[in-house]
């Protein structure tokens, strides 16, 4: 009834490794594809968008309140960073600066997400090229 495991690496283990790597590559192309030009920052709190601005916007600090907490974001053309937050975990500050499309800063207690997105035209033109 209980299958006793093979204790030494077997050839078929490589199939599992290959499957995981393929999945990683597939996800990587899906989420990292598209060059990061014209980044847009999208801020959501509790699933609802509360702010959206291009990263090329004037540099400076932006303050958000979400879930009873206050977060301060430092915005500059080369990225965004949460510099101050009164949330208990401080994960959002520890994330540091994000600068590429798809990257995000998450504050779980505040249910706050700050996400960078590249222009969508890059992805759609890529699809057109494949179809055509």
């Amino acid at each position, binding site marked *: 009834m*209980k299958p006793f495991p093979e204790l030494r690496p077997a050839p078929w*283990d490589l199939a599992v*490794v290959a499957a*995981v790597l393929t*999945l990683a590559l597939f996800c990587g192309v899906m989420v990292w594809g598209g060059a990061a030009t014209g980044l847009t920052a999208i801020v*959501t709190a509790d*699933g609802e968008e509360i702010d959206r601005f291009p990263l090329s916007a004037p540099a400076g600090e932006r303050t958000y309140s979400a879930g009873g907490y206050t977060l301060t974001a430092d915005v500059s053309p080369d990225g965004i960073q949460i510099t101050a937050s009164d949330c208990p975990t401080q994960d959002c500050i520890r994330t540091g600066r994000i600068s590429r499309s798809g990257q*995000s800063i998450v504050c779980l207690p505040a249910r706050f997400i700050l*996400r960078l997105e590249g222009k969508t035209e890059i992805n759609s033109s890529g699809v057109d090229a494949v179809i055509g």
Partner: protein
Amino acid sequence: MKLTTKELTVCALLTAMALGLSYLENLFPLSLAVPVPGVKLGLANIVAVFALYALGAGQAFLILFARCLLGSVFAGNMSAFIFSLFGGVSAMAVMTLLSHLRGLSVYGVSAGGAAAHNCGQIAAAMLTLGSTAPLYYLPVLLGVSLLTGGLTGLVCACLFRGLASTNFMKG
């Protein structure tokens, strides 16, 4: 499911060990590479792999639920429960399936389980946050899962080798 006193004792012991490992993984600064709060390495999968082979899928799932429930009670929040349950159940489902395949060693089963664990955790993060943002970190996490899976396999292989000379596995 009817458990003998010995089985119940082993289950309780393994649950405690899984909780210990869950706590231990807080020491690894995974949040530096994957800044999605709640996502964990999945060291408790060592116990899951061991339980799956030594006790069978039924008791392995029992230990998993006990670990997730107690772990979130200690952590004191509901999202910890969702994260560990999603990760744990995905891993256990995949490993149960893989363990029936011939030609796979404990390493392959562990690696598959670790990958499934991380997919489950990202799914939990997307659900909790109502956003697909955490998906960005899945490729990195899948790479990490090959390492944790290999480590899990190694630890379990050593465990089973040690137990081969006892009559534990014969129940």
